[in-house]
């Protein structure tokens, strides 16, 4: 499989996920790049983050990504000679705050596939950046995904999750939940 010189984030993400799947590895697009997948006009990312479901042997990942022209630079980080997007593999498991992510969405494009966080999980993930570190960009991205994919984002599940996080770590500022939800209206 080859990637065109002008390949976009989504092209690289589909290709990488597919070659890894063919090598027997389930890699899920997460973090800011999953947000960029859902709101490409509003948010861009140059790192494409995947978490491999079960820790994959590095040589398996190396070999699969080499077919796309990606080479390992450091542990869990791959670059392409001409494309500006890097592939990053943070250590799993997939988790948002205290909760593990055990299901995701799988999109298909011709014979390619992409495992990716659901819109609800992207909203949780980006909101948590804002909640934990006060990152306003992450808040804006969470709001953008929640608005753009309103039909797919489960706000009741989101609110229930914030309550569970708050119960475990009372140092989180509960007023930020209200700010997020009121900004959506």
């Amino acid at each position, binding site marked *: 499989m080859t990637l065109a010189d002008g390949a976009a984030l989504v092209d690289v993400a589909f290709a990488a996920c597919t070659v890894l799947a063919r090598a027997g590895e389930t890699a899920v697009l997460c973090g800011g790049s999953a947000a960029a997948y859902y709101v490409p006009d509003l948010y861009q990312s140059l790192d494409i983050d995947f978490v491999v479901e079960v820790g994959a042997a590095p040589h398996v990942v190396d070999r699969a990504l080499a077919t796309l022209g990606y080479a390992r630079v450091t542990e869990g980080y791959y670059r392409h000679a001409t494309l500006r997007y890097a592939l990053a593999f943070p*250590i799993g498991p997939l988790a948002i705050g205290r909760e593990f992510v055990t299901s995701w969405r799988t999109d298909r494009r011709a014979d390619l596939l992409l495992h990716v966080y659901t819109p609800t999980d992207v909203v949780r993930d980006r909101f948590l950046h804002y909640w*934990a570190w006060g990152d306003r960009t992450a808040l804006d991205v969470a709001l953008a995904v929640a608005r753009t994919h309103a039909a797919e984002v489960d706000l009741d599940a989101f609110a229930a999750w914030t309550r569970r996080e708050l119960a475990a770590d009372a140092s989180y500022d509960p007023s930020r939940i209200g700010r997020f939800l009121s900004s959506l209206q």
Partner: protein
Amino acid sequence: MRRDDLRPAVFGTATRDRVLIRLALSENGLHVRELARQIQTSPNAVHRVVIALERAGVVVSRPVGTTRIVLLNRRWYGAVELRALLERLASAYPEVDARARTFRERPRRIGKPL
């Protein structure tokens, strides 16, 4: 750091233990040089530990000027339990705890005499 220290390395190495314990005692994080000074080891050793812990998601770092501030990652799925364990372990490292207590993290007005 003494080479004849008999305390067990709970997280694999003595440096790793001390880095984590010292970070648990910090509200705002520390830069690598200060972290190394606080636990009395080399900045290079601390840097290596921080890179490994950052990749595991246990700590995060953010650039401030020309340096990086390192802190425990409160977004990590085991953050609450890890902090509780580290605060407990800190009692076994009174020298780390003592240095943390004398390290000023609160703001101080520019030009204010010591």
